[in-house]
């Protein structure tokens, strides 16, 4: 299926390869070609693949998307999210390309490197040679393979050992494509948090207008021993766009990584989160919130690999769906044979606000060790009419009552997001945008 489209991508690569950043450096070429050969081998996934059973990517795979180029990028008129309360170091990418003029990296503390991946590739940063592509699993799906083949720009973030970064580092990907010609961006990020370092990174996808385009993103995140990383992925693509993203997390001994995976945009949006706990004492918290409306399709596939003993993982995903939207949650926990004393928890709760909304939730535990503590739970429910009535009987109109209860449902996962402006933004989205009710605020 889609062979002609597959060939178009391969041809596009052949034509573009030497012009891509670092295209003359042998190892860079090797990385890209490993991606290309994987893509040739597996192509696009179909619903016959177990991991894509509920997500049909035909609308994405039926036509080739041209790579969005840097030339002609209009940087004016692009509205960036502004939070008065959020002080951050900021990297802005338009159509997948780093735009220094919109970025704000002057105040980076010592010990922190934030640079565009294309610059890092051109300069031949040594660490990239050993680390780039190392943390994506071998059995990659075609989209991630395609990202590797076309990897061009994104962020390379390096936090030195024992360096604590006070303000979050924001990576903002803005798509400003008119949608007349189908175009794709391939954001690629590599974040390495050195031993004992501490950092928060916020990766955000937004659009300049509600057009159709395709974002195919991959992020590799490495937490060295005892590093503490708070990672956010905030996906707010155009409601007509396609988004396929991979977040591959590798954790060393005693590291703590919290991923906060928030999906609100996209016509079809899929995120693969893959966490590997590679040495003892590592802890992973996986928080997720997906909010679907209209005819959106939002798919989250998560996998945590407990490879060694004494690691813990705690996964908590919630979904709120209205209209005819559909969501998929697949949470896989693999406890390898040597991973004794693993503690792995997983919870997925869904709230359906309309009759036509739908969710498929699938917990999957594979346990090969015998002394472990694992649990999982999944629920799908609706707003309790008794609660709505109770609030109405206190004078609160029905829309506001539904808003309050929807926010109340999502609140325990939202409260896990450490960055307050993100919490405020989600409250606003849930109560004002999603239900078109009145904004409600917590009393001081």
């Amino acid at each position, binding site marked *: 299926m889609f062979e002609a489209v597959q060939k178009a991508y391969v041809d596009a690569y052949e034509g573009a390869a030497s012009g891509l950043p670092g295209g003359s450096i042998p190892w860079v070429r090797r990385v890209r070609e490993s991606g290309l050969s994987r893509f040739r081998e597996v192509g696009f996934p179909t619903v016959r693949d177990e991991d894509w059973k509920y997500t049909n990517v035909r609308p994405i795979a039926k036509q080739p998307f041209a790579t969005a180029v840097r030339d002609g990028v209009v940087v004016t008129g692009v509205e960036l999210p502004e939070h008065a309360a959020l002080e951050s170091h900021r990297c802005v990418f338009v159509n997948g390309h780093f735009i220094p003029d919109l970025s704000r990296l002057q105040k980076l503390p010592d010990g922190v490197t934030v640079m565009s991946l294309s610059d890092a590739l051109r300069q031949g940063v040594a660490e990239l040679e050993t680390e780039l592509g190392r943390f994506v699993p071998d059995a990659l799906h075609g989209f991630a393979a395609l990202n590797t083949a076309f990897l061009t720009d994104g962020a390379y973030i390096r936090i030195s050992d024992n360096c604590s970064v006070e303000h979050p580092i924001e990576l903002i990907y803005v798509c400003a494509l008119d949608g007349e010609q189908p175009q794709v961006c391939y954001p690629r990020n590599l974040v390495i948090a050195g031993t004992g370092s501490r950092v928060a990174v916020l990766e955000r996808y937004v659009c300049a207008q509600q057009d159709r385009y395709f974002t195919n993103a991959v992020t590799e995140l490495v937490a060295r021993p005892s590093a503490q990383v708070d990672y956010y992925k905030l996906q707010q693509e155009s409601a007509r766009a396609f988004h396929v993203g991979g977040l591959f997390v590798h954790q060393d001994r005693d590291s703590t990584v919290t991923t906060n995976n928030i999906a609100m945009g996209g016509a079809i949006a899929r995120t693969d989160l893959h966490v590997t706990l590679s040495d003892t004492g590592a802890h992973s918290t996986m928080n997720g919130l997906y909010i679907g409306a209209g005819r959106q399709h939002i798919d989250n596939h998560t996998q945590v690999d407990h490879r060694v003993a004494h690691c813990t993982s705690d996964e908590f995903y919630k979904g709120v769906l209205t209209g005819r939207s559909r969501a998929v949650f697949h949470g896989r926990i693999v406890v390898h044979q040597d991973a004794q004393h693993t503690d792995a928890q997983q919870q997925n709760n869904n709230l359906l606000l309309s009759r036509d909304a739908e969710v498929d939730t699938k917990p999957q535990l594979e346990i090969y060790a015998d002394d472990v503590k694992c649990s999982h739970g999944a629920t799908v429910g609706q707003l*309790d009419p008794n609660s709505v009535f109770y609030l*109405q*009987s206190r*004078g*609160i109109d029905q829309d*506001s009552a539904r808003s*309050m209860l929807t926010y109340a449902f999502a609140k325990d996962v939202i409260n896990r997001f450490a960055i307050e402006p993100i919490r405020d933004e989600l409250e606003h989205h849930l109560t004002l945008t999603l239900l078109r009710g009145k904004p409600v605020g917590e*009393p001081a």
Partner: protein
Amino acid sequence: MLSINNLHAAVDGKPILKGIDLEVGAGEVHAIMGPNGSGKSTLANVLVGRDGYDVTGGQVVYRGKNLLDFSVEERACEGIFLAFQYPVEIPGVSNLYLLKAALNSVRKHRGLSEISAVEFLKLIKEKIKLVEMKEEFLHRSVNEGFSGGEKKRNEILQLAVLEPSLAILDETDSGLDIDALKVVANGVNSLRDEQRAMIVVTHYQRLLDYIVPDKVHILANGRVVKSGDKTLALELEKRGYTWLAQNSDAAAAPSAGV
């Protein structure tokens, strides 16, 4: 204040209220008593406009307006308050948040501005004393993990904050031990005034020792079969509901239609 005239109502197509007549004036406390299934709770739910309670006949006039035309929230904003027999638990919505949202809705309806955070907290701190509630309860989710007594106190707290014109207490005494009952009754008594009417729905006379009614009505088989002053409740307590059955056609002929 409230005038109920030949009210008929059905639940799931089954007639429950079969011609209720009731006049409640400002400042009055009316007790409604009756055996299980007599329609007491149905009457309370019809007055607040709960879904599934279908009015099939009659009129309810509240402060000169046709109450049945109003939505649930409009009735609340117009000053009708029901203290529920079984208050729901609402995880994720704090008590304080609910109180503020409710108060502001009612204020907005009355053309008042939103209450300031400072004023609101001052008001709440004063009101929780009425029901002897600890401040920590304000920050907990509405009724979540509350004991039966705490839930009922919480209802009375909402009543105290919203200051309705007509308060309906639906079996507020059920499930309360004597100490909790006294706290709840004291809270209610402190809210009695000349402008406010109350309808106290109860199965037992016990509550009426503490909340002394001006009038007592006995409901049986969807009708008011007997009305009187507070002594009626005492008589009923002494002689039991079977005494009524012998005295009332309505109660004696439960299969009689409307």
